[in-house]
C-alpha cells in the first residue's frame, strides 16, 4: 500500500512540475482533476496504512493522570 501511495504521490508531483513549467488550459485541467485527486488518494492511502498499523490507536496510557 505504501508503494501505491508513493506512486500516486509521484504522479501528483509530476503533474505539478508539468504545470509549473508550462501552464495552459490543458495542464491546469490535469493539475485540478488528476494531480489533486492523486495527491489526496496518496495521502489517504498512507494514513489508512498507518492507521491499520496502529499508529492512531489509543493505547490507554495517553490520558492525563487522575491522581
Amino acid at each position: 500500500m505504501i508503494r501505491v501511495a508513493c506512486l500516486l504521490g509521484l504522479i501528483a508531483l509530476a503533474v505539478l512540475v508539468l504545470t509549473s513549467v508550462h501552464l495552459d488550459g490543458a495542464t491546469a485541467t490535469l493539475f485540478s482533476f488528476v494531480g489533486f485527486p492523486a495527491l489526496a488518494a496518496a495521502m489517504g492511502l498512507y494514513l489508512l496504512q498507518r492507521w491499520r498499523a496502529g499508529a492512531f490507536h489509543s493505547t490507554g496510557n495517553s490520558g492525563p493522570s487522575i491522581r
Partner: protein
Amino acid sequence: MLPILVALPAAVILLWGLVRGRLPPALAVAGLALPAAAYGLGVLMVMEKSKDLHFCGSCHVMTPVVESLHATDGDSLAAIHYTRGLVPTAQACYTCHSGYGIWGTVGAKRAGVMHMVRAFTGWYVLPVHLNGTFDINSCLGCHAGAASFRAVTAHQDPDLQAALLNRSMSCTGACHPAAHPDAALTGGAAS
C-alpha cells in the same frame, strides 16, 4: 519555480518509499508535508497565472475570442478596450470577467473550474454565450467616476441609471457594441 523546488525533495522521498516499500517516520512526515506544501504553492501559482490572457486563449474555444481582441475596426467593446490600452493587456479577460471586488475574484475562479470541466468534457454549445448576466460593476468600477462618462447626456438620464443599477439594461447591445464579435464565439468554426 518555487513549487518545483519543494516538489524535488518530496519526489526523492516518495521514490525512496516506492523502492523500499516503507518510509522511516521522519521521512514519512516530510513525505506528507512536502507534497502538500508543493501543491499549496502550485495552487497560488495557478491562481495568479491563470489571470493571464494567454492562459484564457489556450483552450481552443477561447482562442478566436482572444485573437479578436487585436481587431481595430471598433466592432467589439473588448477589442476597443484592449487595443487602446484601457485594460491591462496581459490580464484583459480577467479584468472584465472577474467581476468587481473580492467576491468577483472568487466567482471568477469558481467559474474557471467549471470552464475546465466543460472544455474537457465538451459540455458546451457553440456559439458560446455568457453564463448569466454580465456584472456591469466591472464597467462602472472604472467608468462611473470618470468625467467623460458623466458628461454623456444619456448617462445622466435617471431612468437609464435605474435600468443599469437594477440590471434590466446592460452597457452592450443597446448603446455600445457587443463585447465580442459573433464570429469569434463559434470556437473557430464557421458561424
